[in-house]
């Protein structure tokens, strides 16, 4: 049983998979076969598993860019596979913030514009910010330790990897999406930067009331999470192989 999350949203379920199966090709082997996986709203879940265990595939399913072969998948009480591809894209824009391993930023946008990119495809998120979008983006960046004007105006490619990841985190959090999915966001960071980044991420998710699904192959990061889920333990496809 999942531990209860914190705060007022504890009753809601952020992610709920039942009998979820996925394969890349109709004739291919199953990559995922997850009888049950739930994340309660507000929870900080560490999803752990070696490379190739299907972590990124699961994120693709939750994000709505992949379609399951079978099973149910509810994200924020929404039946994702039932949505049209366009509605899934809209849902992702409105409700989920993503942070990837590295190269999270568009090299041709400035720092603030990269953060605002999180709202560009989501009328809902930009509506939530109203006319204060730029101010809110700067507040987010400042909270993540990027307040220096020279940092904000320099090209994103000139930032350190750690700074880039913090910009990516600001983008994922801008407009308060209910769910933040981080896919190995710290693997390109040094150990000390890594811990600081994690703490910032925790703080900001708590501040935004966002559920955090953090994916990594590195079990040493699991301190501070509400719950650790080993993907091979919930994925029967992984156990068979």
């Amino acid at each position: 049983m999942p531990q209860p999350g914190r705060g007022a949203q504890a009753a809601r379920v952020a992610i709920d998979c039942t009998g979820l199966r996925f394969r890349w090709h109709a004739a291919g082997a199953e990559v995922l076969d997850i009888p049950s996986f739930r994340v309660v709203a507000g929870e900080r879940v560490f999803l752990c598993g070696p490379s190739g265990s299907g972590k990124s595939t699961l994120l693709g399913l939750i994000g709505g860019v992949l379609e399951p072969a079978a099973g149910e998948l509810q994200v924020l009480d929404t039946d994702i596979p039932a949505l049209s591809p366009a509605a899934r894209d809209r849902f992702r824009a409105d409700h989920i913030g993503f942070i990837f391993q590295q190269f999270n930023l568009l090299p041709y946008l400035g720092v603030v514009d990269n953060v605002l990119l999180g709202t560009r495809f989501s009328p809902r998120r930009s509506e939530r910010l109203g006319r204060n979008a730029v101010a809110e983006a700067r507040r987010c960046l400042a909270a993540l330790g990027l307040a220096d004007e020279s940092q904000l105006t320099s090209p994103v490619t000139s930032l350190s990897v750690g700074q880039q990841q913090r910009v990516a985190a600001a983008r994922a959090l801008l407009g308060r999406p209910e769910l933040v999915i981080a896919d190995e966001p710290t693997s390109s960071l040094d150990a000390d930067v890594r811990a600081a980044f994690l703490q910032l991420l925790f703080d900001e998710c708590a501040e935004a009331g966002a559920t955090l699904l953090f994916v990594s192959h590195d079990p040493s990061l699991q301190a501070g999470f509400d719950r650790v889920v080993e993907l091979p333990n919930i994925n029967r496809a992984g156990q068979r192989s």
Partner: protein
Amino acid sequence: MTPLPGLAARSLWNRRVSVGLTALALAISVALLIGVEQVRKAARASFTQTISGTDLIVGARTSPVQLLLYSVFHIGYASNAVSWDSYEAVAGSGLVAWTVPIALGDSHRGFRVMGTTRDLFEHYRYARTRELRFAAGVPFDGVYEAVLGAEVAAALGYRTGSEIVISHGLDDTGFLEHGDKPFRVVGVLERTGTPLDRSVLIPLQGIEAIHVDWQQGRPPTPGERVAADEALARDLTPDSITAFLVGLKSRAATFRLQRAINDYPDEALTAILPGVALAELWTVLGVVEDVLFVVAGFVVVAGILGMVATLLTSLNERRREMAILRAVGARPAHVFGLFLMEAGLIGIVGAAAGFVVIEAVLWLGADAIGRHAGIHLLAPAPGWREAAIAALVVGASLLAGLLPAWQAYRRSLADGLLVRT
């Protein structure tokens, strides 16, 4: 609120060197195409207005194009002459305002000599309304005076006061020279871009004077010779001329007089409308301009293919960008639109830049082109054809952009949030 145009513009700006070169290639091709179009329009206008303000050209019975070729362009030979009596009969008609007789057949160092009257300087018009103007000197007055076309003066280094000797016939063999009756240059014309630039103009009486002692096309024997000043005492009215230009009091009478001349009972004559004959001749030469236009069109196609290649090449290095856009909620259709817009923007920038470049070149270079090539860019203002070319290039860029856009669409659909490399 779609962020795509801004993203497309900034993405292109980020890759401005490679994109700039691509757009430059497109711009050059567009400039070439519009340039060819502008120049051919101007060349056509310039050519068909080699002679303007003249209502009829009259010569011995021949085809209109041939009459035009030898009387105006000084190409080929007149098979027959027009008798002075016929000329006077037409010139005396009540419909005729002025005439300019033309006598050809001699040359000076490869340039044709044209016997005419001072009326030429008054009535000859080219490029619609331009008059002949003198770069130096004045029209000829005396029998042994000559006016040179600009190219003759430039090529042979003559100026007013130079003495020239006319050769008999059109071959520059130097065997049969009218060395006993030299001509003095009294005027040099400004460049016109017409065959007059390559002509030596002398009075009709001068043509008559240098042949006064010749016997049926044979040079005089020493005993038969008539000295230059003696010749002046003779009647120097020619028996015949090669052709003549006619200006009418009223243009409405053009066809009536043309018919009358063509049906002239005493001599087989042909009267042509220069504009009509010039247009007819141009349709023959026009094939060349069509070929040029097609070649320029292919250069544009090459430019657009270059752009497609650039966009396709960038696809791989931009997979991460696609994934980021997808993660923040962009649909594959957005990615498609982004690439299509980039192609369209390159097309717009290329077409606009090419347009500006060629207009600037034509505008700045119009004078020089007029002076050196004889093509007067009468209509350098771009017309709907140029606008259509620009629109077509942008349209073709968009069409060609469908390929990289489709590729990007498929990849972003397959890659989703991951970049599997």
